């Protein structure tokens, strides 16, 4: 683990420098991600605008929730974007071979090779939106609440990574893992809506099966309703540990049956 940490800056610098020749591309990506998120916010505005409020959720509150969901999503995106490639391509086409012949964790090597700085666009949009709507969201702000929310965001990164790795790893067994991952990942978009009012079945799924609701929606709900947000921290931690353990286990089982390509 120490070696991996020590090497990471080296990987980041290599990834950044190899991206230099495509700088314009990264900027286009950044703008496109930012536009996508602004459009999402406009969608929320229009939907909520049709009614005075959805229960406790007014537009500023939902906008704040939206901004919050972007933070862990963007940070995960910056560090582990390569997992998409794993799901769609790398496992099926034997692209792990090279990494498996080196005395360093192959998953680490694969993921570390790309540092996706254009994800910063999403991160900035998220933080800016939180700053704008935080004061209007009807939240009684305390220092403890802010710290808890930051903790939830950090744990949320691991939850995102865990879910991505879990579904990318099924590529060892399943042909279209990328599409499964895509479908599951898209569900995270619904955690920025009032999950609790969208039906018991859906809420249960979002809390206990694919827990986007637990680590994205629940912390903000606690803040808005004045419930104890430390419960959200605890549940996010549980979700992070469970998801990462599950994902790494599935990855380990998968790598043992890795078939490379064209034996």
């Amino acid at each position, binding site marked *: 683990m120490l070696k991996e940490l020590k090497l990471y800056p080296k990987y980041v610098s290599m990834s950044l420098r190899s991206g230099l020749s495509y700088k*314009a*591309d990264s900027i286009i990506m950044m703008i*496109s991600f930012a536009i996508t998120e602004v459009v999402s916010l406009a969608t929320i505005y229009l*939907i909520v605008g049709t009614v005075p409020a959805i229960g406790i959720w007014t537009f500023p509150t939902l906008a704040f929730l939206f901004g919050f969901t972007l933070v862990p999503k963007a940070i995960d995106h910056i560090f582990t974007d390569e997992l998409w490639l794993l799901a769609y391509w790398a496992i099926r086409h034997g692209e792990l071979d090279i990494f498996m012949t080196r005395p360093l964790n192959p998953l680490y090597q694969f993921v570390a090779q790309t540092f996706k700085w254009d994800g910063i666009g999403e991160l900035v949009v998220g933080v800016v939106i939180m700053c704008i709507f935080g004061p209007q969201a009807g939240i009684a702000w305390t220092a403890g609440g802010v710290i808890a929310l930051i903790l939830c965001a950090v744990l949320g990164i691991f939850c995102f990574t865990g879910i991505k790795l879990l579904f990318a790893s099924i590529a060892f067994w399943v042909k*279209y893992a990328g599409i499964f991952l895509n479908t599951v990942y898209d569900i995270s978009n619904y955690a920025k809506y009032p999950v609790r009012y*969208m*039906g018991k079945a859906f809420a249960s799924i979002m809390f206990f099966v694919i827990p986007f609701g637990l680590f994205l929606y629940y912390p903000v709900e606690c803040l808005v309703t004045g419930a104890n947000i430390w419960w959200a921290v605890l549940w996010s931690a549980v979700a992070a540990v469970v998801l990462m353990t599950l994902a790494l286990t599935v990855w380990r089982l998968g790598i043992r049956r890795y078939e490379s390509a064209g034996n």
Partner: protein
Amino acid sequence: MRRGAIKRYLIFTKAGFQTLMAYRGRIFLWFVGALISAVLMSLLWRAIYSFSDEPTIGGYTYSQMLLYVIVSAVMFEVTVSDTMGAIVDDVRYGQIGMRLMKPISYRLQLCFTNIGNYLGRLLIFGVPFMTAGTLIAVYGFGLTGLTWYNILLFIPASFIAMMINEAYDFLFGQLAFRTHAMFGVNSMSMTISGFLSGRMIPLSVFPVWAQKVLNCTPFPFMMSMPVRLYLGVMSTNDVLISFAVAIAWLIAINIIGQLCYKTSVRKVVVFGG
């Protein structure tokens, strides 16, 4: 175009259909993914309707909104175009020079291939998914107002929508000659057209001024108009005018695309593909 020429391009339509058949497993899963998304969206709408004082939102009852969400999700998968992807691949693998040298029009080749793709998506997935969605809306949620002629008219309307969508894709796809960041360009152009065409939410919940502006753009004809036609919420007059305007837009975007294409091709010739 002479009849022989059309026949030559119909080969591409057949090829597009066959490619689709080869990838039907994967495309089936994309349809399922879109449907899951539509179900989640309809849950959100249900929550919103339950907090609304009015029985309709943006002029739609809940059962209409439900079908709107399903039809737009399925229609998106049916009318999605492969044109941008094809240009990107041709540029990336250095095939573009060769393609441009052939005595057939690259533009028409892309277009006809996409028609085959559309037909396959419509017949194999679109029809069953739409039928299921419609039956659920009618028998499960008491939807009324659907007519057989509106449903039949949906087919030409979705065809024109696909053609506009494809022309729009061709316009943006040409950026492949200038940048490698086509993933970003693609997601940006999809987000914009998705939002402005009424795929994410019906245009009738937009502010009135925005609706007026949008009505002067091609976007509503890529999604909103065919879906509204299907739901039977358009007057006969509206339908006729919409078809005429949609066709006018189709021609206009193609002309713009063609003009841009001339400069793009010059770029390819300079760099030797």
